[in-house]
């Protein structure tokens, strides 16, 4: 029988292939800016829905019936879950997850992977929860078109939060080349 390759351990469930792209220094900066922009865009998309719901009224030429749904606390829960997941993912030291057992104890790597899993589960739970909220609160009761926007805003908030987290992770795990600019 052949020994497993050193970079592939069959006992490992959670393989983390890091994209070692050789991005330049400015790509990293651009990635950070892009992640921040996506983060703000995500939260403003949902806040737009919430503010719109708070100021919702029927059209002026229609009979004044109150709007059928409002943004409630249930709508905030997927975004909060995604935010927590993003926080957990970005608080992890990325060298620990990469699994170099040489330094520290080996339990630290295991714990780092556990928290990484918890973070990804929170983000995926947020995305799934937003889809659940969209279907159960806005699509199935067949509320009018302009109120289904709340649900779609919720889903796009969570997608943008996930994209922001991905961009942030990639731009932070860019292996910076050793540059010795010793100009004396």
């Amino acid at each position: 029988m052949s020994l497993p390759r050193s970079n592939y351990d069959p006992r490992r469930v959670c393989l983390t292939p890091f994209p070692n792209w050789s991005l330049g220094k400015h790509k990293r900066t651009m990635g950070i800016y892009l992640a921040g922009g996506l983060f703000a865009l995500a939260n403003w998309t949902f806040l737009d829905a919430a503010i719109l719901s708070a100021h919702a009224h029927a059209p002026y030429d229609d009979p004044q019936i109150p709007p059928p749904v409002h943004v409630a606390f249930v709508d905030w829960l997927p975004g909060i879950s995604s935010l927590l997941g993003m926080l957990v993912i970005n608080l992890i030291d990325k060298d620990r997850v990469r699994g170099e057992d040489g330094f520290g104890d080996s339990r630290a790597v295991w714990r780092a992977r556990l928290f990484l899993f918890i973070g990804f589960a929170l983000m995926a739970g947020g995305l799934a929860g937003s889809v659940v909220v969209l279907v159960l609160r806005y699509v199935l009761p067949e509320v009018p078109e302009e109120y289904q926007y709340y649900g779609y805003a919720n889903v796009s908030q969570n997608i943008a939060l996930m994209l922001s987290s991905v961009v942030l992770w990639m731009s932070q795990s860019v292996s910076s080349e050793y540059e010795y600019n010793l100009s004396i």
Partner: protein
Amino acid sequence: MAHAGLKTVILLSFVLAVGFLMIILSCALWSNWLPLLVALIFVLAPLPNALFAHCGGDDFTADYEGSGPVDLGRFLTSIVVVTGFALPLVLAHSEIIRPGACAMSIIGGSLVYGTILAYSAAFKQDESDFD
């Protein structure tokens, strides 16, 4: 552009004044002073970068472009800039301010922020000569 002259200063201050004029007009014409927040946001936008710029460590560390506080400052700056553009749009979408006020405050805000960026780019001091 190390020796940007007096004309640059006059031009930039003129553009800054036009930007503030647009924002204040967007508030005053409809007597709704919420868009004034845009001016505050764009003035505060370069603050995180300025605060965290000196946490980057010295030139001899290995990852001299990528330290955590500098990244945090860039992240916060980007959030604040996008907030400045998104706030008038959200307010106009909810019919709290008029679309005209939204457009004027966005144009004024981008003029103000562009002035700040151009100023810091034109008058950037070459610090690497001294160490």
